[in-house]
């Protein structure tokens, strides 16, 4: 493991943008740089893919089927998408169900920079400087009942604005889920921005979830509902192809997808001559999350 200095990893332009952003949202400078340092250390347990993916690649190469199935479609088709007003309800097995606007959430929970790897189930990866905060903070607001065992995330359904939802490519609205202990883990993030800027529409604005040790599709975008439930929810991808997409979908090089390799990945933004890199257990976050799955057969619960 190598510790990175802030200056080593952040291009100057980005750094400056970030300063501006901090001023604009009025966050404390001290808390931001401290918290992001520790996360930086976590995020880079591998030297092979430690460089930040460019802003351009992060914002133009996306899987977001609500805006189309092509990688460039989300960027092309989401620019007019309206994210105001926006509200998120937290309901189900909770003592105090609430509905908060996106603005309220942003002001209640200060965002910090969180640099995490993203590993797509298709076999490519990025390193993304997200802005966000732990989902556990938001969930602590509603007093979760002891019956609640899982969390279900629901993304927005708006076929008027989201072209891709006019076709039954997936079961709309997009649904994802986590076990409660996964949801409460500090790495599980409510994302509010990236590269120190507000979250672009194509990346799941205004609010999305990010779970760094799971394949990308587990991280629901543009969420409108967080529901605490007793039973394991069925996600949209599980419904589409249960043989290919399991509930857990932890990044695991030892459990191959029926149709493509999970042992290695291509780092997005590399040249023709950049080699594949080995995929790491739990996407490199094994130290932090392996204890959630002790005693579980990860081949069975894939």
């Amino acid at each position, binding site marked *: 493991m190598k510790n990175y200095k802030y200056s080593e990893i952040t291009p100057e332009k980005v750094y400056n943008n970030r300063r501006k952003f901090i001023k604009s949202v009025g966050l404390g400078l001290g808390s931001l740089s401290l918290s992001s340092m520790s996360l930086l250390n976590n995020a880079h347990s591998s030297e092979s893919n430690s460089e930040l993916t460019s802003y351009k690649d992060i914002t133009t190469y996306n899987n977001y089927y609500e805006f189309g199935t092509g990688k460039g479609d989300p960027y092309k088709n989401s620019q007019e998408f309206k994210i105001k007003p926006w509200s998120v309800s937290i309901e189900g097995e909770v003592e105090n169900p609430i509905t908060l606007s996106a603005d309220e959430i942003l002001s209640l929970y200060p965002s910090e920079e969180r640099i995490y790897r993203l590993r797509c189930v298709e076999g490519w990866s990025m390193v993304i400087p997200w802005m966000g905060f732990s989902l556990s903070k938001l969930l602590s607001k509603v007093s979760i009942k002891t019956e609640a065992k899982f969390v279900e995330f629901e993304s927005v359904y708006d076929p008027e604005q989201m072209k891709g939802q006019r076709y039954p490519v997936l079961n709309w609205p997009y649904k994802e889920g986590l076990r409660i202990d996964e949801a409460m883990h500090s790495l599980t993030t409510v994302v509010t921005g990236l590269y120190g800027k507000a979250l672009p529409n194509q990346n799941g604005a205004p609010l999305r979830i990010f779970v760094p040790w799971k394949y990308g599709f587990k991280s629901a975008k543009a969420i409108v509902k967080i529901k605490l439930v007793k039973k394991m929810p069925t996600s949209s991808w599980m419904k589409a192809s249960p043989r290919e997409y399991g509930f857990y979908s932890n990044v695991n090089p030892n459990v191959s997808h029926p149709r493509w390799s999970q042992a290695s990945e*291509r780092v997005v933004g590399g040249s*023709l001559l950049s080699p594949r890199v080995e995929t790491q257990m739990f996407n490199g976050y094994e130290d932090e999350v392996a204890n959630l799955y002790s005693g579980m057969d990860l081949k069975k619960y894939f």
Partner: protein
Amino acid sequence: MLTQTNKIYLKVVIFTLSLVPLFYIIYQILTNQLGPEPIKDITHHTGKWTLYFIVITLAMTPLKKITKLNIWINYRRMFGLFIFFYASVHLMTYVGLDYRFDLTSIGDDIIKKKYIFIGFTAWLLLIPLAVTSNKRMMKILKDKWKKLHRLIYLISLFGAIHYLWLVKRDLTEPLIFLAIILILLTFRFKFNKN
């Protein structure tokens, strides 16, 4: 009717045009126009052009029957060889660029993943066709040549299925390919009966 010289000119033009997809991707590589996953772009591009040349090659016989012109057949062999050419570039992109000749991983892929298995099989089956595509082999093999070259029907189906099996969710394009290939294949049976 075209004169012999015109036929040769036409052949040169078609040959050059058939290389355009190759030059196009080379141009994109050199000018840095490929997306964030350039190897995937090259793989998809050459794979698609393999399928396009399968369709073009299979279309020659129906076009001959429909237009009652023999000229189409003059170019069938060249198109067929371009199937092999683009399929080989496609395969080499996967083997050399993507997996850097890591034969253990590739072998594992071929055994475990059915779309790679069927694609690789299709490429293997193309080899005897490419080798026997010259006039000398036609003479040596006589009747057997025609039978051997009917393998392209099977190869074309394998190619379409290879595409169908690898696509994640939206099956529209591979199904269109499969449909076109099936239509072109039914022409064979229809005209054979007549």
